[in-house]
């Protein structure tokens, strides 16, 4: 149990007596960092959370956005890092399950899953490879069994995740606005637990997630059961239609302790429950174990007395177990009984609100030692370097991953994974575009600009499909917050995100903070992950590959920003340099301009420049169209006297590559000039080679065929032969 001395003192002072063991267990679970956000809650308030489309209701576990015509989209993001580092298959799968139940708890149907996966160096570390392979199959098996498409995500490898795993899962739901669950409860209402049986699995999981991962402490294993989850989804949605649900909460971290205290607190009610009524997997579980078990696939429902027979009937129909465990009172207490004996009796608001902490922050020392320039590097042949990058695990095609996922089930997927953002068709004729992005390499060098950059990249990706950003979710993953240096990086990232969200007027509709991501060799790099949702009123821009004679344009300025780039880190093994920064005004102007070009049907395809810089974005376009391109980098708008390598590989933000048909080129140029956007017409697509020159110097000459092979086989070869 991990209650601090101060917390124990606070409890004795407030409650005025010694706590029972069960009470201490309940509080320890609820007051863990994972459930209580005690380090971050004070600060998270700076994020803008309201907006035109945002629907806020008490007790929602996911963000709700109004998309018009009586429909809503819900979104949530979670991680399952600690469990996945120990048991990648089950950990990743149960991570999917948890976030799906958050979507379900608002009364919407889950329609899509995204996942962000991060592991150590899979080229040299067989353990990292084992974690990666198993996490991917865990997600695939779970999502595929549920019939919910996994439509995108990202995969990244970095030394800082050695012997560890970051498994982030985001889910999207869709439903009718008038069917949203309006969480409420009346005295005498019944408290029902439905779903899988409660067992010893996952006991202490959220406390486990709030401690650093030590090799001997590996108790929290959860086994996924997607078939029960599927039945729960259908049960809940039918119960919703039959108006059997007054309030609902998913059982996640902290199990029943957390679900009961938070529900009672948010609704201002008391809940009395009898642990003898809870269906369990094995006999002989103690009340403490039942209260903090994190067995998966369970939901807490508050229903009216007269609706119970109907709810039972629905549960029977789907063969989902359902126990009546207690009822609603007006005393605002959380009362846990076993038969006639009381095991815990505490004010719900006391349990649900851990004392918040003021963590200290200081600028990390490592930042002072970072070098601005890489002076020792050898000059390399650019063509060879590009091939090396194309087959590197972070840049190579991730089809090995997403081909394991069913990304089309549900027939909503209009733009499939593999390029920028994916797009889903909604029932009101509109389209939803979504993407998640992270970049620990940038965030390590500059947590503030790095986090803003992730946010901008996710926005860029959905802009490439023609969507307007309407909401974001953030998942902030850091090491131990008790370390002031780590807390500083958290605050920097949070402030940066908040500034940019306010500027763009894109509200933060949900998120999660995950601390204590520590590996045996130290904390992970700051890894905020940002998901952005966008709406498209008319059909999205389905990318058409470039063909012979099409023009290539670049929008945005290339700067001296090789810091944290794949070129520095993968090719030169150098950590340092200038982290890319986002100029807010330019960023917005470029987004608006690209969107208006798409709206006017002037471009065939847009691709943003991100990992690997301009030259990798160009290669991806060429590979996609299986066509060469001749360009002169003289025409790339950039800071003065920028070296060739910086122009080619710098990962500056707010840049887009446009593929334009010859007949539209004049209009596109006029449009861009009118908006006073920095852009350059770089050349035309043709032939079977990418040739890049600067004035009369040949810099790159490479066959698209060869590049294609390297790009598509890079990751697969590594996994097949490793």
């Amino acid at each position: 149990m991990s209650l601090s001395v101060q917390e124990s003192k606070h409890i004795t002072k407030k409650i005025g007596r010694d706590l029972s063991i069960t009470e201490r267990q309940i509080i320890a679970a609820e007051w863990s960092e994972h459930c209580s956000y005690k380090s971050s809650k004070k600060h998270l308030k700076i994020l803008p959370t309201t907006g035109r489309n945002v629907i806020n209701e008490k007790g929602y576990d996911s963000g709700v956005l109004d998309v018009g015509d009586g429909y809503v989209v819900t979104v949530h993001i979670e991680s399952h890092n600690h469990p996945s580092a120990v048991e990648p298959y089950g950990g990743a799968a149960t991570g999917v399950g948890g976030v799906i139940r958050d979507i379900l708890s608002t009364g919407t149907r889950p329609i899509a899953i995204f996942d962000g996966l991060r592991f150590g160096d899979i080229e040299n570390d067989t353990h990292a490879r084992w974690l990666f392979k198993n996490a991917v199959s865990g997600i695939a098996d779970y999502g595929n069994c549920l019939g919910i498409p996994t439509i995108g995500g990202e995969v990244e490898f970095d030394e800082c995740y050695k012997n560890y795993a970051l498994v982030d899962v985001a889910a999207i739901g869709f439903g009718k606005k008038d069917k949203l669950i309006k969480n409420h409860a009346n005295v005498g209402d019944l408290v029902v637990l439905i779903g899988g049986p409660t067992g010893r699995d996952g006991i202490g999981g959220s406390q486990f997630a709030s401690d650093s991962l030590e090799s001997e402490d590996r108790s929290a294993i959860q086994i996924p059961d997607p078939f029960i989850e599927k039945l729960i989804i259908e049960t809940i949605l039918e119960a919703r239609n039959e108006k059997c649900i007054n309030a609902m909460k998913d059982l996640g971290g902290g199990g029943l302790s957390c679900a009961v205290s938070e529900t009672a607190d948010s609704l201002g009610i008391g809940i009395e429950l009898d642990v003898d009524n809870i269906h369990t997997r094995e006999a002989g579980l103690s009340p403490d174990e039942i209260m903090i078990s994190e067995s998966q696939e369970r939901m807490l429902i508050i229903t009216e007395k007269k609706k119970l027979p109907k709810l039972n009937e629905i549960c029977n129909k789907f063969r989902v177990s359902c126990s009546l465990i207690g009822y609603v009172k007006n005393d605002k207490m959380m009362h846990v009984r076993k038969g006639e004996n009381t095991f815990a009796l505490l004010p719900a608001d006391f349990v649900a609100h851990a004392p918040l902490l003021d963590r200290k922050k200081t600028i990390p020392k490592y930042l002072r030692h970072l070098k601005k320039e890489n002076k020792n590097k050898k000059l390399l042949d650019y063509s060879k370097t590009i091939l090396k990058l194309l087959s590197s695990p972070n840049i190579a095609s991730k089809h090995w991953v997403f081909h394991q996922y069913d990304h089309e089930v549900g027939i909503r997927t209009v733009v499939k994974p593999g390029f920028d953002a994916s797009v889903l068709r909604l029932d009101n004729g509109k389209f939803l575009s979504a993407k998640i992005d992270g970049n620990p390499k940038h965030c390590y060098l500059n947590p503030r600009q790095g986090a803003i950059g992730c946010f901008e990249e996710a926005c860029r990706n959905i802009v490439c499909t023609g969507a307007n950003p309407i909401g974001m979710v953030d998942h902030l993953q850091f090491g131990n917050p008790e370390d002031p240096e780590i807390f500083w990086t958290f605050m920097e990232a949070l402030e940066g995100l908040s500034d940019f969200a306010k500027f763009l007027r894109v509200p933060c509709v949900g998120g999660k903070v995950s601390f204590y991501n520590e590996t045996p060799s130290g904390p992970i790099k700051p890894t905020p992950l940002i998901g952005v949702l966008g709406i498209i009123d008319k059909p999205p821009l389905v990318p058409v590959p470039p063909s012979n004679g099409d023009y290539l344009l670049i929008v945005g300025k290339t700067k001296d920003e090789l810091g944290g780039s794949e070129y520095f880190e993968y090719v030169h093994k150098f950590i340092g340099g200038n982290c890319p920064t986002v100029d807010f005004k330019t960023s917005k102007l470029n987004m608006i301009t690209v969107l208006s070009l798409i709206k006017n049907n002037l471009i065939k395809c847009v691709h943003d420049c991100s990992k690997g810089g301009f030259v990798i974005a160009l290669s991806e376009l060429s590979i996609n169209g299986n066509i060469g391109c001749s360009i002169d980098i003289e025409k790339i708008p950039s800071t003065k006297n920028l070296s060739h390598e910086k122009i080619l590989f710098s990962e500056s933000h707010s840049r887009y590559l446009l593929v334009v048909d010859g007949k539209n080129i004049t209009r596109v140029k006029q449009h861009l000039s009118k908006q006073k956007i920095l852009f350059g017409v770089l050349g035309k697509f043709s032939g079977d080679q990418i040739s890049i020159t600067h004035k009369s110097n040949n810099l790159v000459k490479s066959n698209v065929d060869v590049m294609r092979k390297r790009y598509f086989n890079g990751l697969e070869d590594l996994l097949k032969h490793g």
Partner: protein
Amino acid sequence: MNMPTYWVHVTIENKSGISDPEGETILNDLVLQGKFSSVSKINSAKLLKFQINEKNKKLAKKKIERLCDELRIFNPMVSKLSINIITD
């Protein structure tokens, strides 16, 4: 000298107390739906059969044990192994 051939059977199953959705599903949705109400528990497991040439039984078993460990044939956090030798 020709070494004898052994069949080594490795059973991988979840440790007790860890849920076994496959076993539970077979029990609840198949067996108990039929006329076999005297069945009360089903545990699912994976069986791997290795054919191996080794000097003796003991070495054969040891080699397979090491193999399972090193190649991560199972996850020791979740599953347990039982190894049986069947002489050819």
